[in-house]
């Protein structure tokens, strides 16, 4: 299992379209991937789950991945978040 903390830095936070991008990306991997705040942990492949985090700008989230492509999936998701989901 691999994990990494990352800050949500885009202006709108982890809003609906950003969540959809994250879920689409996570869905391309075979690993089980979660995204969590201090309070809530969600399946990164479920858009409604990811939205329950209600993670605004400057929220720290933890990405955890476990499975055959865990490293690649973690890197890809961290990359998406650090690149502000292609926004701003």
């Amino acid at each position, binding site marked *: 299992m691999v994990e990494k903390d990352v800050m949500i830095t885009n202006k709108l936070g982890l809003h*609906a*379209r950003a969540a*959809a*991008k994250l879920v*689409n990306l996570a869905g391309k991997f075979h690993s089980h991937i979660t995204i969590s705040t201090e309070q809530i942990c969600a399946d990164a492949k479920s*858009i*409604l789950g990811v939205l329950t985090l*209600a993670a605004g700008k400057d929220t720290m989230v933890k990405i955890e991945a476990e499975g055959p492509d865990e490293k690649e999936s973690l890197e890809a998701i961290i990359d998406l978040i650090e690149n502000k989901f292609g926004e701003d």
Partner: protein
Amino acid sequence: MFGILVVAHGELGNLLLETANKILQETPENVFSFPIAWDCDFAQTKEALDKKVNKMLSESGSILILTDLFGGTPTNLAMTQFKKNKVQILTGINLPILIKAIILQKTGVALEECLSELRMKGQEAIVLVSEIIGEK
């Protein structure tokens, strides 16, 4: 793959579908809106709905009709279409239900198997924010 038909007052269904598509960044297949005009004639609208449902059934085999308000004309019209194992109706549509329905539809799951989950997800997505963040 079942079809999805949103039957709602005025432009509500169109706007919900447009919003879901915008969020999911796709235009799903076999997902349509059937707007019910405020001054609609029930018999004429039922006839048009019959045609729409039959066309969708010929393409999809089964349909999920999502309506906005139990007791309202769109739901009353939709209820004329109910056919067990072929046409199911879920009322009280919200954006999370529609998004979840589109996602489930794409997985190829049978309509009957996702009805309970859709209702549950729609209810779970209604959040009293004060219960989450407490009083400030």
